């Protein structure tokens, strides 16, 4: 309705015309090349430069202009740009609630993909990965970087130095945390200021305490106030009340507060996803001093499974005028040569059926951790990662943060999330 306002349309048209005139990205240049724009919060500038160089070499008639922003700034920017009709040709979204909100602005990719890759293009993708980039069976983006979350990173060397073994049960984790505290070592470093981190840890734990019930609640088949989920909230809060988490966890971010604690060898445990493997590439000089491992997160109900999801999905702007070229870039980064460059930079897992391993030299410890994560992914994957509804995701994040700060009971936390689900 707002877009139908005459004045607004005229104003937006003026803005769009001005933007196009400034960027010159609308029409092919005299030499026949077209310029497309890419925006995201990932990968790093260095990796993106490598991708652009390889893509332009493979597609000399297409130039790419990339803009990378920190995640929070990116979300604000992309919303504003798309709403005003000045969005980029290709952009990154998270699966779940974010994809659902942006759906009507995205080009359905079946036609473009069939034209570029053939009718059976979807068969080359990991089914779960492509499903997370789709709504009702229609792909609205191409996935990149399959990741797991909810596992527990361990500094094995630090445990050994304190006479401790890697805990496999909740009581062992609590006892180890107590011993570590006494020795002046940070036990579990968890960035509880990040709602995504809390949701990852909770989701893994809930699938140990009450398997499947969180997915039932997220998909409308159950309530967040079920006994199983209340018990899950209780198990989650024990991380903080039983002294497992570091002091001041509720005020810490994963990047870089808790990452620093772990990478600098000051924390014995670290809550983070498989994407943390990139520390073997980007922080190798810091973590070389200790042996890292990834294990299942212990819970009072036993070891937690992991949850899995794509790092993002590369979407094509529905209102863009270079959709074919835009799709080529998305495909290049998702499953083409660009995927290899991305994996070399992040050590993520491939989203394609065909496995893709890092093409760079990595340490023996990095290979061991990668094998541990692969085993978790293969044998202990509970389900998808992203909460499908943005409102529920926000409410869940807030409720978990209150639990982390000890200002709410598990039952009340569950009730708050249920209220958001019913809203």
């Amino acid at each position, binding site marked *: 309705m707002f877009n139908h306002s005459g004045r607004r349309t005229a104003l937006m048209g003026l803005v769009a015309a001005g933007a196009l005139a400034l960027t010159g990205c609308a029409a092919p240049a005299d030499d026949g090349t077209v310029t497309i724009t890419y925006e995201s919060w990932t990968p790093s500038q260095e990796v993106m430069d490598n991708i652009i160089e390889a893509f332009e070499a493979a597609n000399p008639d297409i130039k790419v202009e990339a803009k990378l922003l920190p995640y929070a700034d990116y979300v604000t920017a992309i919303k504003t740009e798309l709403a005003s009709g000045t969005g980029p040709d290709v952009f990154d979204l998270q699966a779940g609630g974010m994809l659902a909100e942006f759906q009507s602005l995205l080009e359905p990719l079946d036609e473009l993909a069939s034209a570029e890759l053939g009718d059976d293009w979807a068969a080359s993708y990991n089914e779960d990965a492509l499903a997370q980039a789709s709504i009702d069976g229609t792909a609205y983006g191409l996935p990149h970087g399959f990741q797991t979350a909810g596992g527990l990173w361990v500094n094995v060397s630090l445990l050994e130095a304190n006479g401790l073994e890697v805990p496999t049960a909740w009581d062992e984790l609590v006892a180890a945390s107590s011993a570590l505290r006494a020795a002046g070592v940070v036990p579990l470093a968890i960035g509880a200021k990040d709602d995504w981190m809390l949701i990852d840890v909770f989701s893994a734990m809930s699938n140990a305490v009450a398997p499947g019930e969180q997915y039932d609640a997220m998909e409308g088949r159950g309530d967040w106030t079920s006994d199983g989920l209340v018990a899950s909230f209780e198990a989650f809060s024990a991380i903080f009340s039983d002294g497992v988490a570091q*002091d001041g966890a509720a*005020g810490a971010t994963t990047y870089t507060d808790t990452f620093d604690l772990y990478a*600098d060898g000051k924390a014995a445990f670290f809550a983070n996803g498989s994407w943390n493997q990139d520390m073997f590439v980007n922080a190798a000089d810091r973590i070389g001093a200790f042996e890292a491992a990834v294990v299942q997160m212990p819970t009072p109900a036993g070891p937690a499974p992991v949850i899995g999801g794509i790092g993002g999905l590369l979407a094509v702007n529905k209102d863009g005028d270079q959709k074919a070229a835009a799709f080529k870039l998305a495909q290049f980064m998702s499953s083409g040569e660009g995927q290899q460059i991305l994996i070399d930079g992040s050590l993520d897992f491939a989203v394609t059926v065909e496995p893709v391993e890092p093409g760079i030299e990595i340490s023996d410890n990095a290979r061991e951790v990668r094998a541990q994560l692969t085993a978790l992914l293969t044998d202990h994957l509970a389900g998808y990662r992203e909460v499908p509804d943005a409102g529920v995701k*926000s409410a869940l994040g807030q409720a978990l943060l209150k639990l982390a*700060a000890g200002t709410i009971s598990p039952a009340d936390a569950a009730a708050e999330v249920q209220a958001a689900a019913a809203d």
Partner: protein
Amino acid sequence: MSIATARRRPDWRRSPAAILFILPCVAVFGVFLAYPLIRNAYVGLFEWNGLTSDTVWVGLENFIWVFTSPAVFGTAVNTLVFGVITIALQMGGGFLLAVALSGPGRLRQVLRTLYFIPVVMTPVVVGFLFGKILEPNDGDLRNLLDAIGLGALNHAWLADPSTALVAVALVNVWLWVGFAMSVYQSALTTVPKELIEAARIDGARSHQLVTQVLLPFLRPTHWALLTLSVIGTLKTFDIVYVLTRGGPSGSTELPTTLLFRTGFEEYQQGRAAALGTVIFLVALALTIIQLRVARKGDER
């Protein structure tokens, strides 16, 4: 007949050129202030995710949410506490610094500059800086306290709901006290020397000079700073967002951070717009009240 009523009312029909002169101002006001405000209030009447053209008319529902939501009420309480702490310390500290550092001298000049430096720093940078200083496990404050044997004083200031708001407010004071100091310094230069000399001849001691001469004389400056500080409090966003994101448990949530979360994380642009409209109206009302009170004070 009073002077006010004796003034001739301008007859716009007889001086069309005057309209042309004020037209640019009116146009700028209309395009950049009035239109966005009205538009924002209008958006508040819809359910809208801020992205697409799909909207649902909900009437005053979003405004009712603003006035009934416990989350919004919590931000009002937090704003009050945050405002009282920051305004009192900024103005009080700024005044004392201005008095202490007024006058000639290289050291005073250096100190004035040092106190003013935070004002020109972006709050985001200051937020990151203090985030690192206050980090409870390996932060600079903890390491300092440990080094001097005061480790028992360590505390997770930003992670404890009972201390987070005060901690953020104090960082905000650090950021802006130099601004208040500079304003008071400028105002102090307008104090007539004769007034000070007369007070001294009458036997006024230093503290009496400050409390009974300077403070009353600077009343217009107090009101100006108070007005700016109240508006600044209602607009505070970046320093809180970087330091705590409104947490933990909403203990530092301000209307602006809630607005951001509602609009950009929960995709409820209608509610965010309604909240923004109410914030504006509150700021407008408070400013009008302060100006009227200040004017009455001046008339006395």
